[in-house]
Protein backbone atom coordinates (compact mmCIF):
# COMPACT_ATOMS: atom_id res chain seq x y z
CA UNK A 1 0.00 0.00 0.00
CA UNK A 2 1.28 3.42 -0.82
CA UNK A 3 0.03 6.85 -1.64
CA UNK A 4 0.42 7.10 -5.39
CA UNK A 5 -1.38 10.34 -6.21
CA UNK A 6 0.75 13.38 -6.90
CA UNK A 7 -1.63 15.74 -5.17
CA UNK A 8 -4.16 15.38 -2.38
CA UNK A 9 -7.11 17.31 -3.77
CA UNK A 10 -10.09 15.70 -2.08
CA UNK A 11 -11.65 12.56 -0.66
CA UNK A 12 -13.87 12.07 -3.70
CA UNK A 13 -12.65 9.04 -5.57
CA UNK A 14 -10.41 7.84 -2.75
CA UNK A 15 -10.90 4.17 -1.86
CA UNK A 16 -11.84 2.87 1.57
CA UNK A 17 -8.44 1.15 1.66
CA UNK A 18 -6.60 4.44 1.08
CA UNK A 19 -8.61 6.25 3.75
CA UNK A 20 -8.02 3.46 6.30
CA UNK A 21 -4.32 3.53 5.48
CA UNK A 22 -4.11 7.27 6.21
CA UNK A 23 -6.10 6.91 9.45
CA UNK A 24 -3.94 3.96 10.59
CA UNK A 25 -0.79 5.97 9.88
CA UNK A 26 -2.15 8.88 11.94
CA UNK A 27 -2.34 6.79 15.13
CA UNK A 28 1.41 6.45 15.79
CA UNK A 29 1.77 10.14 14.87
CA UNK A 30 -0.48 10.96 17.81
CA UNK A 31 2.06 9.34 20.12
CA UNK A 32 4.75 11.67 18.79
CA UNK A 33 2.57 14.72 19.56
CA UNK A 34 1.95 13.53 23.09
CA UNK A 35 5.52 12.90 24.18
CA UNK A 36 8.10 15.27 25.64
CA UNK A 37 10.31 15.57 22.58
CA UNK A 38 7.82 16.24 19.82
CA UNK A 39 10.15 15.69 16.93
CA UNK A 40 11.06 12.82 14.66
CA UNK A 41 13.66 13.17 11.90
CA UNK A 42 11.50 11.61 9.17
CA UNK A 43 11.19 14.62 6.84
CA UNK A 44 14.56 16.22 7.48
CA UNK A 45 15.58 18.31 4.50
CA UNK A 46 12.07 18.50 3.03
CA UNK A 47 10.30 21.80 2.59
CA UNK A 48 6.60 22.46 3.07
CA UNK A 49 5.15 25.80 2.01
CA UNK A 50 1.73 26.77 3.34
CA UNK A 51 0.14 29.16 0.87
CA UNK A 52 -3.06 30.57 2.30
CA UNK A 53 -5.32 32.89 0.32
CA UNK A 54 -7.93 32.84 3.09
CA UNK A 55 -7.82 33.45 6.83
CA UNK A 56 -7.04 30.41 8.97
CA UNK A 57 -5.70 29.69 12.42
CA UNK A 58 -6.08 26.02 13.05
CA UNK A 59 -5.50 24.54 9.61
CA UNK A 60 -2.39 26.60 8.91
CA UNK A 61 -0.91 26.16 12.39
CA UNK A 62 -1.79 22.49 12.26
CA UNK A 63 0.04 21.93 8.95
CA UNK A 64 2.98 24.00 10.13
CA UNK A 65 3.33 22.04 13.38
CA UNK A 66 2.79 18.73 11.60
CA UNK A 67 5.72 19.57 9.32
CA UNK A 68 7.90 20.78 12.20
CA UNK A 69 7.18 17.71 14.36
CA UNK A 70 8.55 15.65 11.47
CA UNK A 71 11.59 17.92 11.00
CA UNK A 72 10.49 19.39 7.67
CA UNK A 73 11.16 23.09 7.09
CA UNK A 74 7.83 24.84 6.95
CA UNK A 75 7.18 28.31 5.62
CA UNK A 76 3.93 30.24 5.76
CA UNK A 77 2.85 32.67 3.11
CA UNK A 78 -0.25 34.66 3.85
CA UNK A 79 -1.22 36.42 0.69
CA UNK A 80 -1.98 39.77 2.33
CA UNK A 81 1.76 40.31 2.87
CA UNK A 82 3.00 38.68 -0.34
CA UNK A 83 3.40 39.53 -4.01
CA UNK A 84 -0.22 38.52 -4.49
CA UNK A 85 -1.15 42.08 -3.47
CA UNK A 86 1.03 43.25 -6.35
CA UNK A 87 -1.18 41.26 -8.70
CA UNK A 88 0.80 38.04 -9.12
CA UNK A 89 -1.35 35.15 -10.33
CA UNK A 90 -1.77 31.90 -8.41
CA UNK A 91 0.20 29.94 -11.02
CA UNK A 92 3.07 32.43 -11.05
CA UNK A 93 3.24 32.43 -7.25
CA UNK A 94 3.20 28.63 -7.32
CA UNK A 95 5.97 28.45 -9.90
CA UNK A 96 8.08 30.82 -7.82
CA UNK A 97 7.71 28.61 -4.76
CA UNK A 98 8.42 25.58 -6.95
CA UNK A 99 11.62 27.14 -8.24
CA UNK A 100 12.80 27.68 -4.67
CA UNK A 101 12.68 23.91 -4.15
CA UNK A 102 9.51 23.33 -2.14
CA UNK A 103 8.52 19.66 -1.97
CA UNK A 104 4.93 20.25 -0.91
CA UNK A 105 2.63 23.22 -1.27
CA UNK A 106 -0.32 23.31 1.11
CA UNK A 107 -2.89 25.53 -0.57
CA UNK A 108 -6.00 27.22 0.74
CA UNK A 109 -7.91 29.22 -1.81
CA UNK A 110 -11.36 30.76 -2.15
CA UNK A 111 -11.90 29.29 -5.61
CA UNK A 112 -13.02 25.68 -5.95
CA UNK A 113 -10.49 23.79 -8.06
CA UNK A 114 -7.54 26.12 -7.40
CA UNK A 115 -5.36 23.28 -5.97
CA UNK A 116 -6.08 21.08 -9.00
CA UNK A 117 -5.11 23.93 -11.32
CA UNK A 118 -1.91 24.69 -9.44
CA UNK A 119 -1.02 20.99 -9.29
CA UNK A 120 -0.91 20.88 -13.09
CA UNK A 121 1.64 23.70 -13.22
CA UNK A 122 4.12 22.86 -10.47
CA UNK A 123 6.44 19.97 -9.65
CA UNK A 124 5.75 20.23 -5.92
CA UNK A 125 2.98 18.02 -4.59
CA UNK A 126 -0.16 19.90 -3.61
CA UNK A 127 -2.24 19.35 -0.51
CA UNK A 128 -5.65 20.97 -0.61
CA UNK A 129 -6.25 22.80 2.68
CA UNK A 130 -9.71 23.95 1.60
CA UNK A 131 -10.80 25.31 -1.78
CA UNK A 132 -13.99 27.32 -2.13
CA UNK A 133 -17.07 25.16 -1.64
CA UNK A 134 -15.30 22.09 -3.01
CA UNK A 135 -13.33 20.05 -0.46
CA UNK A 136 -11.24 20.19 2.71
CA UNK A 137 -9.86 16.66 2.71
CA UNK A 138 -7.67 16.80 5.83
CA UNK A 139 -10.67 18.07 7.83
CA UNK A 140 -12.72 15.16 6.53
CA UNK A 141 -9.95 12.76 7.53
CA UNK A 142 -9.53 14.17 11.02
CA UNK A 143 -13.30 14.02 11.57
CA UNK A 144 -13.25 10.36 10.52
CA UNK A 145 -10.25 9.62 12.75
CA UNK A 146 -12.08 11.18 15.73
CA UNK A 147 -15.25 9.21 15.01
CA UNK A 148 -13.33 5.98 14.53
CA UNK A 149 -11.46 6.47 17.81
CA UNK A 150 -14.64 7.10 19.80
CA UNK A 151 -16.90 4.59 18.05
CA UNK A 152 -14.42 1.93 16.97
CA UNK A 153 -15.63 1.93 13.38
CA UNK A 154 -17.23 4.13 10.73
CA UNK A 155 -19.26 1.44 9.02
CA UNK A 156 -22.97 1.50 9.71
CA UNK A 157 -22.95 4.72 11.75
CA UNK A 158 -25.52 7.45 11.11
CA UNK A 159 -23.79 10.82 10.86
CA UNK A 160 -25.81 14.03 10.68
CA UNK A 161 -24.09 17.07 9.20
CA UNK A 162 -25.92 20.15 10.43
CA UNK A 163 -25.72 23.71 9.14
CA UNK A 164 -24.75 25.59 6.03
CA UNK A 165 -24.23 22.70 3.62
CA UNK A 166 -24.26 24.94 0.55
CA UNK A 167 -21.07 26.84 1.38
CA UNK A 168 -19.31 24.01 3.19
CA UNK A 169 -16.27 22.20 1.80
CA UNK A 170 -16.08 20.40 5.16
CA UNK A 171 -19.53 18.93 4.48
CA UNK A 172 -18.48 17.70 1.04
CA UNK A 173 -15.26 16.05 2.24
CA UNK A 174 -17.21 14.45 5.09
CA UNK A 175 -19.85 13.17 2.67
CA UNK A 176 -17.35 11.64 0.25
CA UNK A 177 -15.22 10.09 2.98
CA UNK A 178 -17.96 8.82 5.26
CA UNK A 179 -20.09 7.28 2.50
CA UNK A 180 -16.98 5.53 1.13
CA UNK A 181 -16.32 4.10 4.59
CA UNK A 182 -19.88 2.75 4.83
CA UNK A 183 -21.51 5.33 7.12
CA UNK A 184 -25.01 6.68 6.50
CA UNK A 185 -24.87 10.43 6.06
CA UNK A 186 -27.69 12.91 6.63
CA UNK A 187 -27.43 16.61 5.88
CA UNK A 188 -29.65 19.22 7.46
CA UNK A 189 -30.02 22.98 7.18
CA UNK A 190 -32.34 25.73 5.99
CA UNK A 191 -33.69 24.91 2.52
CA UNK A 192 -31.78 27.88 1.08
CA UNK A 193 -28.50 26.42 2.38
CA UNK A 194 -29.06 22.91 1.04
CA UNK A 195 -27.83 22.42 -2.53
CA UNK A 196 -30.81 21.14 -4.58
CA UNK A 197 -29.07 18.03 -5.92
CA UNK A 198 -27.26 17.11 -2.71
CA UNK A 199 -29.03 13.73 -2.42
CA UNK A 200 -27.25 12.65 -5.60
CA UNK A 201 -24.11 12.32 -3.41
CA UNK A 202 -25.75 9.44 -1.57
CA UNK A 203 -27.01 11.33 1.47
CA UNK A 204 -30.44 12.05 2.94
CA UNK A 205 -31.41 15.73 3.14
CA UNK A 206 -33.57 17.21 5.90
CA UNK A 207 -34.86 20.69 6.68
CA UNK A 208 -36.12 19.64 10.12
CA UNK A 209 -33.35 19.32 12.73
CA UNK A 210 -35.53 17.07 14.86
CA UNK A 211 -35.96 14.54 12.05
CA UNK A 212 -32.31 14.71 11.02
CA UNK A 213 -31.11 13.98 14.55
CA UNK A 214 -33.43 11.02 15.20
CA UNK A 215 -31.21 8.08 16.17
CA UNK A 216 -27.96 9.70 14.98
CA UNK A 217 -24.62 8.33 16.26
CA UNK A 218 -22.65 11.44 15.37
CA UNK A 219 -23.56 15.08 14.76
CA UNK A 220 -21.06 17.20 12.87
CA UNK A 221 -22.07 20.84 13.39
CA UNK A 222 -20.82 23.22 10.73
CA UNK A 223 -19.79 26.78 11.35
CA UNK A 224 -22.28 29.38 10.16
CA UNK A 225 -20.00 31.07 7.65
CA UNK A 226 -21.04 34.62 8.40
CA UNK A 227 -18.59 36.00 5.84
CA UNK A 228 -20.42 34.18 3.05
CA UNK A 229 -23.99 35.18 3.98
CA UNK A 230 -24.45 38.45 2.16
CA UNK A 231 -27.27 37.28 -0.09
CA UNK A 232 -30.08 37.01 2.46
CA UNK A 233 -30.23 33.21 2.44
CA UNK A 234 -31.76 33.21 5.90
CA UNK A 235 -33.58 36.01 7.74
CA UNK A 236 -31.33 36.49 10.76
CA UNK A 237 -28.68 34.87 12.91
CA UNK A 238 -31.13 34.79 15.80
CA UNK A 239 -33.72 32.96 13.78
CA UNK A 240 -31.11 30.49 12.58
CA UNK A 241 -30.02 29.88 16.15
CA UNK A 242 -33.62 29.35 17.24
CA UNK A 243 -34.41 26.86 14.46
CA UNK A 244 -31.12 25.06 13.84
CA UNK A 245 -28.71 25.43 16.76
CA UNK A 246 -27.64 22.15 18.36
CA UNK A 247 -28.76 22.30 21.98
CA UNK A 248 -29.26 19.74 24.73
CA UNK A 249 -33.00 19.48 24.04
CA UNK A 250 -32.48 18.58 20.39
CA UNK A 251 -29.64 16.18 21.23
CA UNK A 252 -32.09 13.97 23.14
CA UNK A 253 -33.30 12.66 19.79
CA UNK A 254 -29.87 11.21 19.00
CA UNK A 255 -28.52 7.93 20.38
CA UNK A 256 -27.60 8.16 24.05
CA UNK A 257 -23.88 7.81 23.26
CA UNK A 258 -23.94 10.55 20.60
CA UNK A 259 -20.67 12.20 19.58
CA UNK A 260 -20.64 15.90 18.65
CA UNK A 261 -18.03 17.36 16.30
CA UNK A 262 -17.39 20.91 15.13
CA UNK A 263 -14.62 21.87 12.70
CA UNK A 264 -14.16 25.26 14.39
CA UNK A 265 -14.00 28.15 14.80
CA UNK A 266 -17.27 27.99 16.73
CA UNK A 267 -19.92 30.66 16.83
CA UNK A 268 -21.15 29.78 20.31
CA UNK A 269 -24.85 30.41 20.67
CA UNK A 270 -25.36 30.44 16.90
CA UNK A 271 -24.92 26.93 15.52
CA UNK A 272 -23.98 25.24 18.80
CA UNK A 273 -25.10 25.91 22.38
CA UNK A 274 -22.41 26.57 24.97
CA UNK A 275 -23.23 23.58 27.16
CA UNK A 276 -23.13 21.27 24.13
CA UNK A 277 -19.76 22.56 22.93
CA UNK A 278 -18.15 21.95 26.33
CA UNK A 279 -19.80 18.62 27.16
CA UNK A 280 -18.04 15.25 27.44
CA UNK A 281 -19.76 13.94 24.34
CA UNK A 282 -18.12 16.70 22.28
CA UNK A 283 -14.72 15.88 20.83
CA UNK A 284 -13.89 19.34 19.55
CA UNK A 285 -10.46 19.60 21.18
CA UNK A 286 -9.64 16.02 20.25
CA UNK A 287 -10.40 16.97 16.65
CA UNK A 288 -7.66 19.60 16.82
CA UNK A 289 -5.06 17.09 18.09
CA UNK A 290 -6.19 14.54 15.52
CA UNK A 291 -5.85 17.24 12.87
CA UNK A 292 -2.12 17.51 13.51
CA UNK A 293 -1.78 13.71 13.53
CA UNK A 294 -3.66 13.31 10.23
CA UNK A 295 -1.55 16.02 8.59
CA UNK A 296 1.65 14.35 9.83
CA UNK A 297 0.39 11.10 8.28
CA UNK A 298 -0.36 12.83 4.98
CA UNK A 299 3.05 14.53 4.88
CA UNK A 300 4.75 11.22 5.69
CA UNK A 301 2.82 9.31 3.05
CA UNK A 302 3.37 11.97 0.38
CA UNK A 303 7.07 12.52 1.06
CA UNK A 304 8.33 9.30 2.58
CA UNK A 305 9.44 6.28 0.70
CA UNK A 306 11.10 3.11 1.81
CA UNK A 307 11.43 -0.50 0.85
CA UNK A 308 8.51 -2.58 -0.26
CA UNK A 309 8.68 -5.08 2.59
CA UNK A 310 9.17 -2.48 5.27
CA UNK A 311 12.45 -3.94 6.45
CA UNK A 312 15.94 -2.51 6.61
CA UNK A 313 17.69 -5.86 6.94
Amino acid at each position, binding site marked *: *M*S*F*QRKDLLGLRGMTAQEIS*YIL*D*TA*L*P*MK*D*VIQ*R*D*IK*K*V*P*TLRGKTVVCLFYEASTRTRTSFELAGKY*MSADTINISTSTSSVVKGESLIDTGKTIDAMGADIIVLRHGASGAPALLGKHVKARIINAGDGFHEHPTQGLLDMLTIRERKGTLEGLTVTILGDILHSRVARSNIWGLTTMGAKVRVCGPATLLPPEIEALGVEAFTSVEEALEGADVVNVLRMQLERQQKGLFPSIREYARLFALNKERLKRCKSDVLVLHPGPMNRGVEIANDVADADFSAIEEQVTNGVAVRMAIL*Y*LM*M*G*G*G*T*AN*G*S*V*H
Partner: protein
Amino acid sequence: MNLPDKAQLMDSEGIRRAITRIAHEIVEKNQGVEDLVLVGIRRRGVPLAQRLREKISDIESLNIPLGSLDITLYRDDLSTSHVQPIIHKTEVPFSIDGKIVVLVDDVLFTGRTVRAALDALMDMGRPQAIQLAVLVDRGHRELPIRADFVGKNVPTAKKEIISVCVHEIDGDDSVSIQKLHL
Protein backbone atom coordinates in the same frame (compact mmCIF):
# COMPACT_ATOMS: atom_id res chain seq x y z
CA MET B 1 14.84 -14.69 -8.22
CA ASN B 2 15.58 -18.32 -7.46
CA LEU B 3 15.85 -19.50 -3.88
CA PRO B 4 16.40 -23.25 -3.97
CA ASP B 5 18.62 -23.87 -0.97
CA LYS B 6 17.04 -23.09 2.33
CA ALA B 7 19.09 -24.42 5.21
CA GLN B 8 17.92 -24.34 8.79
CA LEU B 9 20.39 -22.82 11.24
CA MET B 10 18.36 -23.01 14.44
CA ASP B 11 15.22 -24.89 15.43
CA SER B 12 12.87 -24.00 18.26
CA GLU B 13 15.03 -25.80 20.82
CA GLY B 14 18.10 -23.95 19.61
CA ILE B 15 16.30 -20.61 19.86
CA ARG B 16 15.05 -21.46 23.33
CA ARG B 17 18.57 -22.31 24.51
CA ALA B 18 20.01 -19.15 22.98
CA ILE B 19 17.36 -17.00 24.68
CA THR B 20 18.04 -18.74 28.00
CA ARG B 21 21.76 -18.10 27.67
CA ILE B 22 21.26 -14.45 26.69
CA ALA B 23 18.94 -13.96 29.67
CA HIS B 24 21.67 -15.26 31.99
CA GLU B 25 24.29 -13.09 30.31
CA ILE B 26 22.12 -9.97 30.70
CA VAL B 27 21.64 -10.67 34.40
CA GLU B 28 25.34 -11.45 34.88
CA LYS B 29 26.65 -8.43 33.00
CA ASN B 30 24.38 -6.03 34.84
CA GLN B 31 24.79 -7.79 38.18
CA GLY B 32 21.07 -8.18 38.63
CA VAL B 33 18.10 -6.56 37.00
CA GLU B 34 17.81 -3.32 38.91
CA ASP B 35 17.10 -0.42 36.55
CA LEU B 36 16.91 -2.87 33.64
CA VAL B 37 14.24 -2.47 30.95
CA LEU B 38 13.72 -4.41 27.71
CA VAL B 39 12.69 -2.77 24.45
CA GLY B 40 11.94 -4.96 21.43
CA ILE B 41 12.26 -3.56 17.92
CA ARG B 42 9.17 -4.25 15.84
CA ARG B 43 8.23 -6.64 14.66
CA ARG B 44 10.18 -9.78 15.58
CA GLY B 45 12.28 -8.18 18.30
CA VAL B 46 9.11 -7.76 20.35
CA PRO B 47 8.25 -11.45 20.94
CA LEU B 48 11.96 -12.17 21.53
CA ALA B 49 12.07 -9.43 24.18
CA GLN B 50 8.94 -10.93 25.72
CA ARG B 51 10.66 -14.33 25.98
CA LEU B 52 13.79 -12.77 27.48
CA ARG B 53 11.61 -11.09 30.06
CA GLU B 54 10.06 -14.42 31.03
CA LYS B 55 13.47 -16.08 31.33
CA ILE B 56 14.85 -13.21 33.42
CA SER B 57 11.79 -13.40 35.62
CA ASP B 58 12.48 -17.15 36.12
CA ILE B 59 16.08 -16.41 37.08
CA GLU B 60 15.62 -13.34 39.28
CA SER B 61 11.94 -13.65 40.28
CA LEU B 62 11.32 -10.11 39.08
CA ASN B 63 9.27 -8.80 36.17
CA ILE B 64 11.14 -6.08 34.35
CA PRO B 65 9.40 -3.45 32.17
CA LEU B 66 8.95 -4.31 28.50
CA GLY B 67 8.37 -1.92 25.63
CA SER B 68 8.18 -2.07 21.86
CA LEU B 69 9.68 0.32 19.39
CA ASP B 70 8.71 1.11 15.79
CA ILE B 71 11.65 2.78 14.10
CA THR B 72 9.99 3.68 10.79
CA LEU B 73 9.98 7.43 11.47
CA TYR B 74 13.74 7.29 12.13
CA ARG B 75 14.78 5.35 9.05
CA ASP B 76 17.39 6.77 6.71
CA ASP B 77 16.01 5.23 3.53
CA LEU B 78 12.53 6.74 3.43
CA SER B 79 13.07 8.84 0.34
CA THR B 80 14.77 6.19 -1.78
CA SER B 81 11.60 4.41 -2.85
CA HIS B 82 7.99 5.38 -3.30
CA VAL B 83 6.45 2.63 -1.20
CA GLN B 84 6.00 3.68 2.40
CA PRO B 85 6.28 1.12 5.19
CA ILE B 86 3.32 0.90 7.52
CA ILE B 87 4.04 2.50 10.86
CA HIS B 88 3.14 0.53 13.96
CA LYS B 89 2.71 1.90 17.42
CA THR B 90 5.65 2.52 19.70
CA GLU B 91 4.71 1.44 23.20
CA VAL B 92 7.19 2.30 25.90
CA PRO B 93 4.85 2.99 28.82
CA PHE B 94 7.60 3.83 31.32
CA SER B 95 10.38 6.38 31.68
CA ILE B 96 13.76 5.26 30.39
CA ASP B 97 15.62 8.05 32.21
CA GLY B 98 18.51 6.54 34.16
CA LYS B 99 17.60 2.99 33.09
CA ILE B 100 19.72 0.36 31.41
CA VAL B 101 17.85 -0.33 28.20
CA VAL B 102 18.41 -3.67 26.49
CA LEU B 103 17.35 -3.32 22.86
CA VAL B 104 16.22 -6.61 21.35
CA ASP B 105 16.06 -7.47 17.65
CA ASP B 106 16.05 -10.64 15.59
CA VAL B 107 18.88 -10.04 13.12
CA LEU B 108 21.83 -7.64 13.25
CA PHE B 109 22.97 -6.88 9.70
CA THR B 110 23.94 -3.40 8.47
CA GLY B 111 23.31 -1.77 11.84
CA ARG B 112 20.98 0.82 10.35
CA THR B 113 17.91 -0.39 12.22
CA VAL B 114 19.83 -0.21 15.49
CA ARG B 115 21.06 3.30 14.62
CA ALA B 116 17.43 4.35 14.08
CA ALA B 117 16.39 2.67 17.32
CA LEU B 118 19.13 4.48 19.27
CA ASP B 119 17.89 7.82 17.95
CA ALA B 120 14.30 6.92 18.80
CA LEU B 121 15.32 5.99 22.37
CA MET B 122 17.30 9.21 22.82
CA ASP B 123 14.16 11.17 21.93
CA MET B 124 12.31 9.43 24.76
CA GLY B 125 14.74 10.19 27.53
CA ARG B 126 18.29 9.76 28.78
CA PRO B 127 19.03 6.16 29.62
CA GLN B 128 22.02 5.29 31.80
CA ALA B 129 23.15 2.80 29.14
CA ILE B 130 21.83 1.01 26.09
CA GLN B 131 22.80 -2.59 25.35
CA LEU B 132 21.93 -4.67 22.33
CA ALA B 133 20.73 -8.26 22.23
CA VAL B 134 20.14 -10.05 18.90
CA LEU B 135 19.24 -13.60 18.02
CA VAL B 136 21.46 -13.66 14.93
CA ASP B 137 24.48 -11.56 14.00
CA ARG B 138 25.11 -12.04 10.30
CA GLY B 139 27.90 -9.49 9.82
CA HIS B 140 28.19 -6.85 7.03
CA ARG B 141 27.93 -3.86 9.31
CA GLU B 142 27.77 -0.46 7.60
CA LEU B 143 27.94 1.46 10.89
CA PRO B 144 30.16 1.15 13.98
CA ILE B 145 27.62 -0.87 15.96
CA ARG B 146 28.04 -4.20 17.75
CA ALA B 147 25.81 -6.42 19.85
CA ASP B 148 26.40 -7.07 23.55
CA PHE B 149 24.49 -10.37 23.48
CA VAL B 150 24.33 -12.64 20.45
CA GLY B 151 22.34 -15.85 20.07
CA LYS B 152 24.30 -17.11 17.08
CA ASN B 153 26.98 -15.66 14.82
CA VAL B 154 26.30 -16.61 11.21
CA PRO B 155 28.88 -15.79 8.54
CA THR B 156 26.89 -14.87 5.44
CA ALA B 157 27.34 -13.52 1.96
CA LYS B 158 25.69 -10.16 1.52
CA LYS B 159 23.13 -11.50 -0.93
CA GLU B 160 22.01 -14.37 1.24
CA ILE B 161 18.79 -13.98 3.17
CA ILE B 162 18.43 -14.80 6.84
CA SER B 163 14.88 -15.37 7.93
CA VAL B 164 13.84 -15.59 11.53
CA CYS B 165 10.44 -17.04 12.32
CA VAL B 166 8.83 -16.72 15.74
CA HIS B 167 5.69 -18.65 16.63
CA GLU B 168 3.92 -15.51 17.92
CA ILE B 169 3.97 -14.05 14.39
CA ASP B 170 4.86 -16.84 11.98
CA GLY B 171 3.44 -19.92 13.70
CA ASP B 172 6.78 -21.65 14.30
CA ASP B 173 10.28 -20.96 15.63
CA SER B 174 13.23 -21.22 13.27
CA VAL B 175 16.22 -19.44 11.79
CA SER B 176 17.13 -20.31 8.22
CA ILE B 177 19.44 -19.10 5.48
CA GLN B 178 18.59 -18.90 1.81
CA LYS B 179 21.39 -18.90 -0.72
CA LEU B 180 20.86 -16.92 -3.87
CA HIS B 181 21.86 -18.42 -7.20
CA LEU B 182 21.89 -15.54 -9.62
